[in-house]
């Protein structure tokens, strides 16, 4: 779909997802790394737990379908080369920390997107930052985890996912403008604002005349009854959502009926109205009914496997699912049957399935055309083909550590 679009990605963790989404949608994406390799090559986990520039699984996951060159863009030759190269591209992706020199003239058609942890200018623009720090500023961790312990963060860096996927949208928005009038523009993405998406209503709580709500505990209490979200089952955990009202209440109704049919709550409760919130003066379940139901469900789950609960949820229309670990994800017949996966060779003789197809199209298919590039894999080809550098000139650049 983007097969007429060329992207030059000055590689950093925050650009990787952007480049990959564009590459998956058909764009020709070339990453530019310093001769020592992109910082993205030093992100865990590593193949067989052995570190190495070709062994980062994070790098592999986020650089499929791209080609790569190395270039010291801060050397005089590097500056000139990157300038001539970038002007031939439709889109340039960069980060504030690792940007093209300001002096470069990219011409009027290029879309230049800069990702900053906070902003390019203004308050906090000079902050020392990292993925973890940006996530802390997003508002989401402050609501995550048990209130008696510290807030929780994913081990997989998430700000780079948020920033990168937002940057893909940002440059495609600028591309829509260019399709109309032929002109490119500068685009700025804030990783922090992108990550704030995860905090849902938090940014607007105060501005709508409300007070902060404390972390976790209170939210899962209805009519004085504590309701878990993760329920232990025979081989792991399942998620069961107990919610009320016209949209979700009927599912709770079916859930209680299931528990009754399985003999874990009294039959009377299956006939109670669960669309109304328990304790609602209009009728429905009492707080005691809810407590009995929660206890019955707890006992019921312990007798079931993850897949059995998920199967019952599908069959009966209950708001519940298995809590998948990565083995479950890899083995799920749903994802496999649907064609999420494409094979990718991440090391000689080592092929794994990549969850490539984030979207399925009636007349386009996301494919893994090539694995993540090796360090400097395409440098000579691209400098030769794109810029007409001779073989001896390319060797000179290498001898002097510029590529």
């Amino acid at each position, binding site marked *: 779909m983007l097969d007429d679009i060329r992207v030059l990605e000055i590689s950093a963790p925050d650009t990787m997802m952007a480049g990959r989404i564009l590459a998956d949608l058909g764009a020709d994406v070339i990453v530019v790394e310093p001769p020592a390799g992109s910082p993205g090559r030093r992100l865990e986990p590593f193949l067989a737990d052995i570190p190495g520039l070709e062994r980062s699984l994070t790098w592999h996951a986020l650089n499929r379908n791209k080609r790569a060159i190395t270039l010291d863009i801060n050397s005089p030759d590097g500056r000139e080369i990157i300038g001539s190269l970038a002007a031939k591209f439709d889109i340039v992706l960069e980060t504030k920390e690792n940007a093209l020199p300001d002096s470069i003239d990219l011409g009027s058609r290029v879309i230049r997107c800069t990702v900053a942890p906070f902003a390019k200018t203004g308050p906090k623009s000079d902050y020392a930052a990292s993925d973890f720090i*940006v996530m802390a500023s997003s508002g989401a961790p402050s609501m995550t985890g048990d209130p008696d312990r510290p807030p929780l963060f994913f081990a997989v860096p998430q700000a780079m996912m948020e920033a990168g996927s937002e940057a893909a949208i940002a440059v495609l928005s600028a591309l829509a403008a260019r399709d109309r009038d032929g002109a490119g523009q500068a685009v700025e993405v804030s990783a922090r604002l992108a990550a704030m998406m995860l905090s849902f209503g938090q940014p607007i709580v105060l*501005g709508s005349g409300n007070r902060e709500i404390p972390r976790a505990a209170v939210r899962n209490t209805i009519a004085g009854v504590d309701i878990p979200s993760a329920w232990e089952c025979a081989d792991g955990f399942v998620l069961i959502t107990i919610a009320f009202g016209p949209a979700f209440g009927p599912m709770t109704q079916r859930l209680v009926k299931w528990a009754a049919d399985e003999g874990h709550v009294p039959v009377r409760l299956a006939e109670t109205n669960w669309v109304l919130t328990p304790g609602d003066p209009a009728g429905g379940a009492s707080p005691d009914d809810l407590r009995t139901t929660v206890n019955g469900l707890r006992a019921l789950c312990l007798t079931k496997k993850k897949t059995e609960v998920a199967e019952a949820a599908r069959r009966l229309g209950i708001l519940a699912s298995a809590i998948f670990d990565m083995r479950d994800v890899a083995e799920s017949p749903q994802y496999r049957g649907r064609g999420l996966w494409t094979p990718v060779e991440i090391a000689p003789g080592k092929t794994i399935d990549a969850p490539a197809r984030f979207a399925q199209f009636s007349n386009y298919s996301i494919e893994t055309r090539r694995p993540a590039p090796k360090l400097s894999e395409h440098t000579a080809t691209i400098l030769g083909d794109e810029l007409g550098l001779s073989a001896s000139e390319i060797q000179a650049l290498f001898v002097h550590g510029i590529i």
Partner: protein
Amino acid sequence: MLDLSWVMVGPVSGRYLADLGADVVKIESARRIDPLRTLGPFKDGRVGRERSVSYHNLNAGKRSLAINIRNPRGREIILRLAEWADVVLESFTPGVLDDMGLAYADISKRNARVIMVSTSILGQTGPHAVGASGVGTMGAAMSGATFQLGWPDRPPVGPWGPWTDAVAPRFIVASILAALHRRRRTGEGCYIDVAQAEAGIQFMTPSLYEYAANGIVPQRRGADIAPTRVPCGVYPCAGDDKWIAIDASDAKRFEALRNLIGGDTHDRAFDTLIGRIRARERLDNAIADWTRTRIAEEVERQLQEAGVAAHTVSRAGDLARDAHVLATNHLRRINDPVIGEADIEGPRFALARTPHAEIRRGPRIGEHNNQVLRELCGMSDAEIAQLADGGVLETNTG
């Protein structure tokens, strides 16, 4: 854009396009209201179907047409709007639109160039797809995300909120914009199917690869998420549930940190990265002893002045007062006839030459019934009145 979606994933996706200047018509029902209208925050904490500020936040700038799409005349209006639309977006449980005769096959018969997006928890195909409805917490659970967030001695807690509702729109909007680009070149439309759980897997791919390549099933690790980076974590500050995040594992930042806070951090055991990794708990305690009595914002300021990566673990109030959030004009004041003034969010990126549309409030249920039917469907006032009398048009009774 004809937006048949509700709750979060679809509306967030449509909001991106509305901010870019698209005319987004949201179809809703006054009888079976968008559940987002039942979710807070509500203006001044008072619940009401026109009082959800979250609704405004995700539906800013859209027009609302409230009709009964199960009525044949309502269905015909949807098809006429589909002829007008460049993009149609829907988030029904898979199978529901087929039953109503509003699937891609029906829509594309009326508009071959249309780009239609369906989004659901598991997608439209695969053995478990049809009939699968779900919410973003379930998407998180089925993407492998929920399992990895929590303490080893307790059940997983998962990310806060309906996580995939915040993740999936990125893949939906990027797909729509790419399809529009292709359509401008070739005239081709298409059908796009995004499974929200699969979108979640994208953000977790490194740990999926860890399983696929190394055979390791990543477990929940509590606060121990960065074994190669020390110090890197959250430390308690003065006040209730106030925390500072510090990432000072590289040599320069660590020197800056110990020069600022002094005390036990000067122990020679911490001079090297390996030393810090081996004595992590002792170092974390020394840092926590310093942060514990201090105000988080003040710790952030001092550490950043010293060149140490640090930030308050921002809560709702911190975000509303944050210098960066305010300076980038991220919070926009709306003025709504029902709730008065409130803040909603602006875009998360800036376009230098073609700025986003001015941020407007969201619509009330059916607010644009007459306007949309007249302007986009070419109906006369008499025809519209007939629809209203026939119960096809819905008006807000709440």
